């Protein structure tokens, strides 16, 4: 597997560099606190309705739900890209508002501490070359050139995309683009990583690599929040699941094992279908043995 060659030491080097800035909070302290969140697109189409959520340092949280339940919107709020119509979002002990983010100091701090890997890598990889793409964030942070170059080198090596450094995005495959998108976020060494449907539209090999990477990053101290409806990887990538109903509210919260056995709940929030859930759950139970075997599932649904 792609990630096997990277030992934890190699991972720790590029990511552990800014350890001092992350030491303010101990593992288990709340990083993100969301209370009474409401959000509607164009002030008409609700996306989130009265959502409460707490993300603690060092944990892996999965946001589960059918398409259009509001989990992507929640991630965008957690990244300070959208702002709630009602309710509050507090990150690292400070409230995040549009006003606050106008403040350069606060914005810099927040942007460098929270990284967002978008579902659509095409939107995220917007620069002319891979190297420039990865340099984009650090350049905005005003880092010295040397540090930027060193970081880029490290992160290219870590994600095994060194040969792609001078390529243009249109020369990359979907999986390669995903790696570049992740590299462009990891290079800033954020404390919290937000993933939106990370495994969507990836081939099984890249999916498996990504799951390993997420686990590795979490082990290196990163907090992970992930929106997904891929139940097969859940057990590996989440300590805790938050399930959204189709009326944009939190329907349940708990460990992957408990939630995945609650067929009634999964059916109710439209995450599974009558005919398929038996297969899916069967696989999930064996997730430890078969977590990389996505092709297997695919063949079962044909």
């Amino acid at each position, binding site marked *: 597997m792609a990630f096997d060659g990277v030992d934890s030491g190699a991972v720790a080097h590029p990511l552990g560099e800014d350890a001092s800035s992350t030491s303010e909070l101990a593992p288990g302290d709340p990083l993100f606190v969301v209370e009474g969140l409401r959000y509607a697109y164009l002030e008409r189409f609700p996306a989130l309705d009265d959502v409460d959520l707490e993300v603690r340092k060092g944990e892996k949280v999965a946001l589960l739900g059918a398409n259009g339940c509001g989990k992507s919107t929640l991630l*965008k709020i957690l*990244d*300070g*890209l959208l702002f709630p119509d009602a309710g509050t979002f507090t990150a690292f002990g400070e409230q995040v508002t549009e006003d606050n983010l106008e403040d*350069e100091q606060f*914005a*810099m701090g927040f*942007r*460098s501490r*929270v*990284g*967002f890997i*978008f579902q*659509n890598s*095409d*939107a*995220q990889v*917007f*620069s*002319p*070359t891979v*190297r*420039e793409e990865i*340099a*984009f*964030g650090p*350049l*905005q*942070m*005003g880092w010295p*050139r040397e540090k*930027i170059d060193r970081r880029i080198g490290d992160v290219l090596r870590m994600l095994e995309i060194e040969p792609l450094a*001078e390529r*243009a*995005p*249109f*020369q990359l495959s979907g999986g390669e683009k995903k790696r570049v998108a992740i590299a*462009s*976020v990891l290079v*800033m060494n954020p404390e919290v990583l937000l993933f939106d449907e990370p495994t969507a539209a990836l081939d099984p090999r890249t999916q498996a690599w990504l799951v390993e990477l997420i686990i590795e990053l979490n082990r290196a101290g990163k907090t992970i929040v992930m929106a997904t409806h891929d139940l097969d990887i859940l057990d590996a990538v989440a300590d805790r699941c938050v399930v959204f109903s189709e009326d944009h509210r939190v329907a349940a919260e708990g460990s992957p094992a408990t939630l995945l056995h609650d067929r009634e709940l999964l059916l109710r929030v439209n995450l599974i279908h009558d005919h398929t859930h038996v297969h899916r759950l069967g696989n999930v139970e064996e997730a430890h043995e078969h977590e990389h075997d996505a092709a297997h599932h695919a063949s079962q649904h044909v």
Partner: protein
Amino acid sequence: MSDVTVRAEEVPTPQWLVTGELALCPCGCIGKRKKGSFVEKTLSGAVGVMRNAMFGEDVAQQHGFLQRVDPRVKIVAFLGLLIVTAFVRNIPTLVVLYAATVVLAIVSALPVGFFVKRVWLFIPIFTGIIVIPAMFSFITPGTIVLPLWHWNGSPVGITEQGLTSAGLLVMRVATSVSLVVLLTLTTPWTKLLAGLRALAVPRIFILIIGMAYRYIFLLLNSVTDMYTSRKARTVGNQRNDYKEGQRVVGATAGALFGKAHALSEEVHMAMVSRGYAGDAKSYAAFTVGAIDVLFVVGCVVAAALVLGGDRLLGV
């Protein structure tokens, strides 16, 4: 005088003369028109654009002479040569200049056949077609060297001035195109962008150009997908070309703009997420070396020689 006018009024204008537009605009799909939808042709032209872009990137990575010249130096030098080309007034001078571009292509490890073909097969063939009428006395009056027919006692035919003018235009276009092709084929386009940035083109323009270039390929794929899915749903024969064109331009363009806008919102978020606050910062850095100095000196000398020689030739 007045009898000349009367005679002149009776000569019909060839239809091809008043309707020539293609040669002024060799955009997108150029080539022989085959049976089939122009939309399909455009889309296959689009694939050609992509392939061309990728091929160009490969050539630009090779280790030839021009590839080693600093992009800023190259841009300035080629702009200078383009201006020189524009000022030249004699065909022989242009021929020398054109030969020089071929030599530069050879020392820069460009496939010469491709280089020559790209210039002569694509753009100037249309220039060639459009200049044909210009050789005749009814467009370019002057000394008639090849009388073709007589009209009211005066010969009508190809004029010396017309021939010279046509030759000048074709050679000038060929040389200009060669220069641009040389520049773009030997410079990876990101370096070209970076070079422009270093030459006082505002950063914001560079950022937008870079992004636009990047998204052309993405949107091109969207269009191809939309068209393919539309075609897959079409039962029976395609309707005629123009109608189909109306349909595609009207309907696809709307959906495309919607997609494009949604994409731009996402891109903006992706930029903001990584700290963008309206002021883009740039990455590239350049150094000027001996080869650059050599190239600049060479270009200046060449430009002086060309313009001086051109004056000596007269006109």
